[in-house]
């Protein structure tokens, strides 16, 4: 009996706490705002900025340089993927000002009214962005974004472990390399490569086409083609020769190449994805001025050169793209291998056969997710 009373008490206490917990959560955004605005107020001089970017995706000395030049304190955080970033934003666990998602996620965020239009008069360096990277499909009028990097998705393979150079996505489904192929652990990219191979658009919403692509993957799974589904584990596996073939991003290939010179990269003949990651400001950002300063700073030619040199992803800044080979020679005292440069910054004829991801309608996204889980059953 005593136990029962105690239990009931604990239960009602818990419920009470839970309810108050809820209401606290709901009003918390406002007090936060006042705290931050007083923090960023001119009289205190403490200006802050909350940034979220991908891991290993910036030359970190740029953060210090920005802090020194402007006196703004940067809270720099990282997210693992577009999807992880999205769920962070949705669950309200984050209060970022500037984020740097990829194209298709940007259009989803715009669609859901989560971004705010930029004031381009505060971002003079936007001028220097190559026109190829302006007004892209994810932001047709270019109201919300300033491109940060761009690149291609392709096949990375170990030349000592395959019989002949790989040129087609067919290698990703080929029994010949069973157990040596790594599937990228991301439904969009994985189903994407099957769609390219079948000659369909990677943005198709036709369920039959998507199911056909899934069947291709699923057959390859049952034939034991894939050693596993990987994201960042791909570095270890490819560098140490534990797998022969993987799908991954050009910039990361260049990082792997430093540790294993036997690796090669190809954008398959059927075409592939080319992506743009762009900086944008969230609708409920609290440090809007600081955010614009940050974006302008990172869009500068100097910052783009430093970043290109550090993360090996191509810059959208026209001057930086042009100056990089000279910058490299000056920094390292040897000419840049132009073949590598063309992998980082793919020439137009490669981009011509590539396609950018567009945001898929909700029903198709659900289908992608269901199929992706089915593949893991």
């Amino acid at each position, binding site marked *: 009996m005593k136990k029962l009373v105690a239990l009931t008490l604990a239960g009602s206490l*818990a419920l009470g*706490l839970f309810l108050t917990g809820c209401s606290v959560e709901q009003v918390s955004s406002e007090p936060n705002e006042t705290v931050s605005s007083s923090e960023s107020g001119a009289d205190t001089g403490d200006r802050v900025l909350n940034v979220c970017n991908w891991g290993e995706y910036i030359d970190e000395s740029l953060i210090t340089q920005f802090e020194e030049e402007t006196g703004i304190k940067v809270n720099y955080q990282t997210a693992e993927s577009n999807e992880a970033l999205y769920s962070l934003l*949705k669950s309200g666990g984050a209060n970022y000002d500037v984020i740097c998602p990829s194209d298709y996620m940007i259009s989803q965020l715009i669609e859901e009214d989560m971004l705010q239009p930029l004031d381009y008069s505060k971002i003079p360096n936007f001028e220097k962005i190559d026109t190829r990277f302006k007004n892209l499909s994810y932001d047709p009028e270019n109201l919300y974004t300033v491109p940060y990097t761009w690149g291609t998705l392709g096949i990375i393979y170990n030349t000592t472990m395959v019989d002949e150079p790989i040129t087609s996505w067919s290698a990703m489904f080929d029994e010949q390399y069973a157990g040596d192929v790594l599937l990228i652990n991301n439904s969009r990219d994985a189903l994407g490569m099957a769609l390219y191979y079948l000659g369909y658009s990677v943005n198709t919403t036709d369920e039959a086409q998507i199911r056909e692509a899934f069947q291709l993957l699923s057959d390859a799974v049952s034939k034991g083609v894939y050693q596993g589904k990987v994201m960042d584990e791909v570095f*270890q596996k490819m560098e140490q*020769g*534990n797998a022969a073939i993987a799908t991954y991003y050009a910039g990361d290939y260049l990082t792997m190449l430093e540790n294993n010179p036997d690796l090669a990269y190809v954008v398959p003949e059927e075409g592939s994805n080319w992506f743009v990651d762009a900086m944008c400001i969230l609708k409920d950002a609290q440090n809007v001025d600081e955010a614009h300063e940050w974006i302008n700073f990172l869009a500068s030619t100097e910052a783009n050169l430093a970043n290109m040199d550090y993360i090996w992803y191509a810059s959208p800044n026209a001057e930086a793209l042009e100056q990089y080979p000279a910058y490299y020679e000056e920094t390292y005292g040897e000419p840049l291998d132009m073949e590598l440069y063309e992998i980082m910054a793919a020439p137009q004829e490669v981009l011509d056969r590539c396609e950018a991801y567009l945001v898929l309608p909700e029903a198709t996204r659900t289908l992608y997710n*269901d199929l992706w*889980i089915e593949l*893991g059953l």
Partner: protein
Amino acid sequence: MKKNKRSLLAVPYVVWMALFVVAPIIMVVVYAFSTASGGFTLDNFTRMGTYTVIFTRSFKLALIATAVCLLIGYPLSYIMAREGPRFQRVGMMLIMLPMWVNFLLRTYSWMSILEKNGLINQFFSAIGLFDLINAVFGTNIEYFHMIGTQGAVVLGMVYNYLPFMILPIYSVIVKLDNSLLEAARDLGANSTAVFRKVIFPLSLPGILSGVTMVFVPSVSTFAISRLLGGGTQMLLGDLIEQQFLGGAYNPHLGSAIALVMMLIVIVCMWVMNHFGEGEEQAVML
């Protein structure tokens, strides 16, 4: 008066439990039964039939891992508890030592041990084992396929959770009253009978809590299956993680899966505690 004071001491615990155990569970329940727009639904549960395979696989692998842990852990705890204090100290140290290194790091290193070009395969190839096998059996193998298999996942679970099996069993056996064993022997029991009739029943509470502490984290792990299972041995943990951090953001479905998993675990524990009925110090509550 005195009693009131004493119950005051429990306040931090009650608050803690309410905030970090009860409230989250209530939130999970609320999420599981609601849609994104806030309405009531049972869809999250009806959709779950698709995932039967993952449920079965998770519970199967966790059961195997628990059984292996018990098979390795029990004799070890028994021997250790019967040895002198010096041996016990060193033994305890060796069991705890790996736990000072981060769990993910340890699992990551297993990955490079089990890889195709990992330490084990390199070693076997260096001593010519593969040549020998090929010569004897006429096969053509160059390496053992270990990474990405269910075996690798079980190994990861056993390696990571074995201490949780050893410690509770050890602490029960070490406290066994020696006079009980002497009495049993005096009354004519041989050593098998002493173990079967005295030591084993008395160590049952330790076994039960060891089994719980290995089984529960094994059934819900996602890092081990992702790293050692190569993402091909999807477990419940991976499935739930996908709903929260993966392509389709669906915390409602994720909560529903978590809830069902929790219920199954509770049923398992309940059955197990009945299995050990009569042991006053049973584990759960």
